[in-house]
């Protein structure tokens, strides 16, 4: 007996590139204050420059372990970052640098964590994949696919029970829509009418496998919405304004007790999946086309059209560069964590004793 060598599955090599849609010119006119837009420009600059620096430090072998960058995807963390209130909850994945910073965590402490230093935001215990800043409502970065969608429900349930109008947001990728926990989380959120938003950052790939090869519907998130009685929402994940407006609306609804939403933001990562990955599996022309839809230069142009002086944008960019330099210095100045902390913080008493 022998297996059919090619069951005719859609395969990489023959796969057509998935090109970006053009920017919607109407987005210039979305109802967003210029002040908010300038802050979104600044935040995108911070995320971009921070992660480029993180990448450089990698290349200098200063960052051990792994790390997953959002270069090219900054508009999503930015749009939500500005739409959320300080006491809302964020749950992210291992690709969580941007979401952690967008909630207000200190650049230096985040950078130090990547470098595994004792002044890192987790004291070096968690590393790049587990960035957390509870004081900023950033409730964790989860490195195993799926679970955190269920955990976000819990934070939303808690807000509902405590009678606050806080909202919880879970960010995840296109590939994550195929794991069981996604289904369980969405169903419970709707049944309990929880104030939780599920935001799929659809960058078209899981690690190296194109999402179309492994998903029954073209839109991994929006295509599933009806299974939970939700509206299918797809937004341009490379336009911070489009993301911001979608986020603002969904957040408002959740605060008002109108329940959860599932939002698919279509985007693309400029680099590979993680440090090691050159991203070779992507068809010719695809990366280039998406580079042409880089959210930041596009946004720069928009702000100029809206009358923001070039000089203001330049000084923002330079100011961010200075902050990233400072963060890098802060991180490098940290020590490698020592024996003293190895056995702490397993339990609430600060220790790790399992016996008397």
């Amino acid at each position: 007996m022998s297996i059919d060598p090619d069951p005719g599955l859609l395969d990489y090599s023959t796969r057509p590139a998935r090109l970006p849609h053009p920017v919607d010119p109407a987005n210039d006119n979305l109802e967003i204050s210029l002040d908010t837009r300038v802050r979104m420009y600044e935040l995108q600059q911070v995320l971009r420059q921070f992660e480029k620096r993180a990448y450089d430090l990698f290349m200098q072998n200063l960052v051990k372990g792994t790390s997953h960058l959002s270069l090219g995807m900054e508009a999503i963390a930015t749009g939500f970052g500005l739409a959320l209130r300080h006491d809302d909850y964020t749950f992210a994945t291992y690709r969580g640098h941007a979401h952690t910073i967008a909630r207000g965590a200190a650049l230096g402490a985040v950078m130090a964590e990547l470098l595994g230093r004792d002044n890192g935001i987790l004291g070096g215990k968690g590393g790049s994949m587990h960035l957390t800043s509870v004081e900023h409502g950033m409730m964790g970065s989860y490195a195993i696919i799926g679970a955190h969608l269920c955990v976000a429900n819990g934070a939303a349930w808690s807000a509902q029970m405590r009678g606050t109008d806080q909202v919880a947001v879970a960010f995840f990728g296109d590939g994550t829509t195929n794991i069981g926990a996604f289904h369980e989380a969405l169903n419970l959120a709707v049944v309990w009418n929880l104030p939780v938003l599920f935001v799929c950052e659809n960058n078209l790939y899981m690690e190296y496998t194109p999402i179309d090869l492994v998903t029954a519907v073209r839109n991994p998130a929006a295509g599933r919405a009806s299974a939970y009685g939700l509206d299918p929402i797809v937004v341009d994940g490379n336009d911070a304004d489009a993301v911001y407006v979608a986020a603002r609306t969904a957040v408002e609804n959740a605060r008002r007790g109108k329940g959860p939403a599932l939002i698919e933001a279509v985007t693309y990562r400029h680099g590979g999946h993680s440090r090691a990955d050159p991203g070779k599996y992507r068809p010719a022309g695809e990366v280039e086309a998406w580079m042409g839809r880089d959210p930041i230069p596009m946004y720069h142009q928009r702000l100029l059209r809206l009358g923001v002086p070039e000089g203001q944008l330049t000084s923002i960019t330079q100011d961010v560069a200075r902050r990233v330099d400072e963060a890098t210095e802060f991180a490098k100045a940290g020590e490698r964590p020592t024996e003293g902390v190895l056995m702490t913080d397993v339990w609430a008493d600060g220790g790790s004793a399992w016996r008397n």
Partner: protein
Amino acid sequence: MAELTYRDAVAYGIAQEMRRDPSLVMLGEDIAGAGGVFKTTVGLLDQFGPGRIRDTPISEQAILGAAMGAAMTGIPVIAEIMFSDFLAVCFDLVANEIAKSRYMTGGQVQIPMVIRTANGGGSRFGAQHSQSVENWCMMIPGLKVVAPSTPEDVVGLMAASIRDPDPVVFFEHKSLMASKGQVPDGEVVGKLGEARIVREGSDCTIVALALMVPRAVEAAERLAADGISAEVIDLRTLVPLDTRTFLGSVSKTSRCFTVEENPRLCGWGAEIASIVAEEVFWDLDGPVVRITTPHIPLPAAESLEDMAIPSVERIYETVRKALG
């Protein structure tokens, strides 16, 4: 003092804590309207309402995720996983998320939650509804593990588990549900990490847990008739583990037997045996002997299940042969 069944002690203990802390909630499958498939949550919906006692879909990952997220944000939660075998369908949350989040976040996250689950054999439910899986949780750093053998401990350790700021997995033994015992009046609060010497003895120490405790005691009584004085210890909690009590006992008796319902390999008895063999080796007069369920899935037929799980007879014979 009131006499309660082990089954009723569960709801009794939960109610005590729900009255004490108005923010405490519970969720699980069929726990509210139906009072639980083991009838361990009967009456709680009426007393505390659907806001605090929540029925869920058949979504164990969603159940534990909701519990974890609520606990992280200020609401202590009791989550029921109907049968402990089902911990396997939500094991990522148990082993990788709930257990590890505090450490991974450098102590930023606190998770005051209790996972209650029906554990153990004797009901002829077969391999997927009869397992004793307390070792599945004991082996995971970051989890506390409790398995009471009496109604009083059900109430007291339930309270201690709920008040504990760390995640606790609380194993309720199916075959003890109908057993009865006295529970003191007023607030009953136990302590995690304290084993109990159930029966004093001088010739050997038998370390047991949950359903194995009454069996070990009965075996000890039969051994007494043969002139063998066995000390029986109920561990009560596996994490934190009260090593002092069993090490002290073994140092006194010089012989150690463990009786566990776990299938043989990597059961909790192996951990106890390894601690004894390392720390009181010089006090031992003979081998450390483990009595376990054989390393097989549990069979359904009454006759087979009874042969698989350690019985009074097997405990008695094993100790007698080893000491005789």
